[in-house]
């Protein structure tokens, strides 16, 4: 079945350094839709950005990601980490036809901790 892998459970960075959170996925369907959700402490998880277009960069709130279907990857990046970026980040997958039962397939999440 479909799956999403986030290898890093915790990423600790110093403020100002670049951020890269890894996400790879597996699906038998060619029309993969990938999402990044962000979950700040004491808030609801919310959508950060999404993409279905191969090799096209998508950006939102200073973060960006590019879907690479050839490598089944959708890594989240930011040029310079801020203290306020500390949060739990989830990568998630859907396919065009909802054949995963109209569900989002989530990775286990990466906790980003930004230190001064």
């Amino acid at each position, binding site marked *: 079945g479909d799956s999403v892998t986030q290898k890093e459970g915790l990423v600790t960075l110093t403020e100002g350094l670049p951020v890269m959170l890894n996400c790879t996925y597996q699906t038998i369907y060619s029309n993969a839709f990938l999402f990044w959700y962000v979950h700040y402490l004491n808030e609801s998880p919310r959508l950060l950005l999404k993409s279905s277009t191969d090799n096209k960069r998508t950006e939102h709130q200073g973060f960006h990601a590019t879907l690479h279907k050839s490598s089944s990857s959708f890594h989240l990046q930011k040029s310079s980490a801020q203290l306020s970026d500390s949060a739990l980040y989830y990568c998630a997958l859907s396919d065009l036809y*909802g054949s995963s039962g109209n569900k989002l397939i989530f990775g286990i999440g990466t906790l980003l901790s930004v230190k001064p």
Partner: protein
Amino acid sequence: EAAVTQSPRNKVAVTGGKVTLSCNQTNNHNNMYWYRQDTGHGLRLIHYSYGAGSTEKGDIPDGYKASRPSQENFSLILELATPSQTSVYFCASGEGTGGNYAEQFFGPGTRLTVL
């Protein structure tokens, strides 16, 4: 206005007791979902629903039941709560189709402690 609300926000229950977690959405979405969030496991799907009257098992349904009496409301029921069900529970709603419309909108969460 918050579109997905949950009640209670915090709950302490005793082992063997019955717990009901409630969720309400004003998005007019067909689908609703219940997840639990645990460190090292992320968000795991317990039950979901395609619309009023329907419930479907998610990835970890054992020990949980669900009820969808209306488009707006979706409840998660723990008939016999156990300490292993101590967790943070999130409800979400979504249009219920795939692809670009698979986006889900989450509630604020319920912190459940089973003693």
